[in-house]
């Protein structure tokens, strides 16, 4: 021990401010979150169809509760019971309980504070999710209706002028001019009229990027809560996909039994009604709304019709007539069929109608959505079709 006396003595450094610069914990935490995001992304189909994540229509983000990732290690199977050592006033036979109900008040730090308890919520932009779907499906962008069919006036900035309305005065540019002038003048004045610069706008034609999506929901008695949920999930993601393409997208919500009514988005999924199904009422209502508010010359039109496929037999001709009328007008018309069981699909009244239109090369298609996992396939089929159609144009 004597040799210790010759050892260099310990050192006490009281100031080491640069340690504040360390942030590896945060770095690795961000990396973890990135991995969680990637994992969520890989399981996107499950997420899309877990229709519960559609909190409010119109929200631009969805929140997904996620668990922390676990870095797995070899571990023994959880025992039915195991032994340990405690300390304090315990007599043989005494029983303590922890877990279950979390302890309130002063935490004793015992039991149940395992790492599994923490949960956090990741927020995803709906737009990002749609982008991922696009990447996963390797879909090119949708093409709007033929370019010369839809034209829109657009004002684009183009150069500057010394005269113009006050509202278009470009102050930055004006100051720049003043600075240049003052640099070469002796004893200059701050501003002259010659310094003023106004933005010039020119009028251009451009293809319209407007779209309208009409959702028709069969709210007759046979459409129960679960079927509406399926329809809603499909509607939601179909809209998001279209929103990705079109700068300006309008929505129309129509519910029908043997009559049809237009609703706001919030009310739309709450409606219940009794009555039979007369498909033509809903289709006719959409036709009229399109004609009045969203003319085909200015809007890309999409129609989705969710129904269990039933229709009164004596409505057959009327439904076919109005469906044909719509089909020749719109970019696309889709039937989201939610049958009682899978095998009913396409044999139903409405299913047959849509199939026959599709067979005649109208931009029409139908999708059978029986359970959550079908939504993904339906959405995929819808967008694939859109792209195929656009490419063959």
């Amino acid at each position, binding site marked *: 021990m004597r040799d210790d006396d010759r050892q260099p003595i310990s050192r006490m450094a009281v100031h080491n401010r640069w340690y504040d610069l*360390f942030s590896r914990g945060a770095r690795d935490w961000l990396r973890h979150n990135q991995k969680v995001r990637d994992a969520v992304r890989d399981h996107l189909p499950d997420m899309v169809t877990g229709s519960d994540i559609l909190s409010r229509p119109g929200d631009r983000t969805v929140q997904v509760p996620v668990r922390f990732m676990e870095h797995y290690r070899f571990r023994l199977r959880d025992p039915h019971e195991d032994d340990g050592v*405690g300390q304090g006033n315990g007599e*043989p036979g005494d029983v*303590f*309980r922890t*877990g*279950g109900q979390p302890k309130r008040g*002063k935490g004793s730090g015992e039991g149940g504070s395992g790492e599994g308890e923490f949960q956090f919520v990741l927020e995803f932009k709906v737009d990002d999710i749609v982008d991922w779907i696009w990447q996963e499906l390797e879909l090119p962008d949708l093409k709007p209706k033929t370019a010369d069919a839809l034209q829109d006036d657009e004002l684009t900035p183009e150069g500057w002028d010394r005269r113009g309305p006050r509202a278009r005065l470009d102050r930055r540019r004006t100051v720049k001019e003043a600075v240049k002038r003052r640099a070469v003048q002796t004893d200059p004045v701050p501003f002259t009229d010659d310094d003023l610069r106004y933005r010039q706008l020119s009028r251009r034609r451009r293809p319209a990027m407007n779209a309208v999506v009409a959702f028709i929901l069969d709210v007759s008695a046979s459409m129960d809560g679960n079927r509406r949920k399926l329809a809603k999930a499909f509607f939601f993601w179909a809209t998001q996909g279209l929103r990705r393409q079109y700068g300006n997208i309008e929505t129309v919500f129509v519910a029908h039994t043997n009559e049809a009514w237009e609703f706001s988005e919030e009310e739309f999924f709450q409606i219940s009604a009794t009555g039979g199904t007369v498909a033509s009422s809903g289709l006719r209502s959409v036709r009229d709304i399109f004609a009045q508010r969203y003319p085909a010359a200015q809007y890309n039109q999409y129609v989705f019709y969710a129904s269990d496929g039933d229709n009164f037999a004596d409505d057959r001709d009327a439904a076919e007539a109005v469906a044909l009328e719509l089909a020749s007008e719109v970019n696309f018309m889709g039937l989201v069929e939610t049958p009682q069981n899978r095998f009913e699909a396409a044999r139903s009244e409405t299913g047959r109608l849509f199939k026959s239109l599709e067979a005649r090369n109208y931009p029409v298609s139908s999708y059978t959505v029986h359970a959550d996992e079908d939504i993904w396939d339906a959405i995929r089929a819808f967008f694939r079709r859109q792209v195929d159609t656009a490419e063959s144009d």
Partner: protein
Amino acid sequence: MEHMHGPEMSNEQLADYAPRIEALAKERGLSFYPVDFELVPNAFMMEVAVYGLPVRMPHWSFGVRYIYQYVQHRMGHSKIFEVVFPGNPNRAYLVDDNALAENTLVTAHVLGHADFSRNNQLFDRMQREVGYHIVEQAAERANRIQAAIEDHGQSRVEAVLDAALALEANVDINQGLNRPDYPEMREPRDKPPAQGFQRHYNQLPGEDEAEPLPARERAPIPPGPEYDLLWFIARYAPELEGWERDIFLAVREESFYFYPVFACQIMNEGWASYWHARLLREADFLPNRVYLDAIKTHSDVVRPYAGDDAVSLRVNPYHLGFSMWERILKDCSLEEALAIRRDEDDFSFIRNYLHEDLAKELRLFNFTRRPGAGGEERFIVRDREIDTLRENILAPKFNYGGPRIYVKAMGADGHLELGHDVESDGRGLDLARSRKVLNYIQRVWRRPVQLETVDHSGDAKVLTPEDGDD
């Protein structure tokens, strides 16, 4: 609190106290390599506690631990006092916004650890194997891994770290850090003694046939069960690249370094607590207020129960170790105590020195935990039987706290067969998690991997990596 202290009571004062406490410690018989103390911000301290080293390889799992630590800290559940890295010099980190009294206590505590790590045999062996500059070595390795990320991309490096860090506990401490590869050839086994007709034939008269030279055989890999999975993968994985091998060996070296801390926790924390209490008691240069505040901190650290509870279902190692050393130093001479701290680890320490009367005084009891429905757990108090107490305290410490997994065989095609020592672990593995770990291993082993264990009914079960990416 802090504003109540005058300027002379700030942590600056430590620069004055530390050498005096150190001199006192040496006078009382402790011996240690010098300690580089540094006062660091809390955020840095949390990182050190999470990573186990001041600068260590990046991995997302540390990020998760960091957030837990951060949340705990923000909720006021956790306060870090010090982290010390044995070496020559030792490196000790103290928190710069802890009070002077706390840091004074911690300074003495660190000196206790420094004495322990220099003199305890297990620590000493590991120090010699790993080298005395773990902090610098780990930082250097972290840099190399950072460079590997730049060269090979984050996901490839991460795949290697996923596997290596998951096997952190699967090392064989008894084999030494630098061990030679297996012999390639093995000596032929002796011929079995001749029996029956052969024996009679050999006894017949006549000229002995020349014995053919026994052919040396290629030795199987591994020659016997190999428990050091990190080493085995580093040496024998069929397609491991150099930088990947480096990562395995880096994780293994750090695992060796951490082992004594793990295997001597009760002794080591107890020893440091005993000496901080004693040194401060005998440090007459400390103002009364500093001493009293420090002793208050001391009793918080070594208290057996959390809060106002009168019972605890987890034994505080600081408290247990402290109580044991206090008893030992009361009953034995200092020389004997120093010899105990030199020769024992927690296993022998608990078995040899946790006596029945002390266990009784500490009111230790055995319990059985029964998980119930809804996350509720029932703890049934069994008895205070001393041998059971000792083994129950030690149970979580065997084999670095993990199951005993070993390499059984490596096929000619490179496939890897792992086994699980069910006998000594008493039950089978958590199958789902084990498959995930096999998944990690397969990504670096690059040949088929399997693991044999038993399922819940005790039947043999061969696991293979699960499909999927996570």
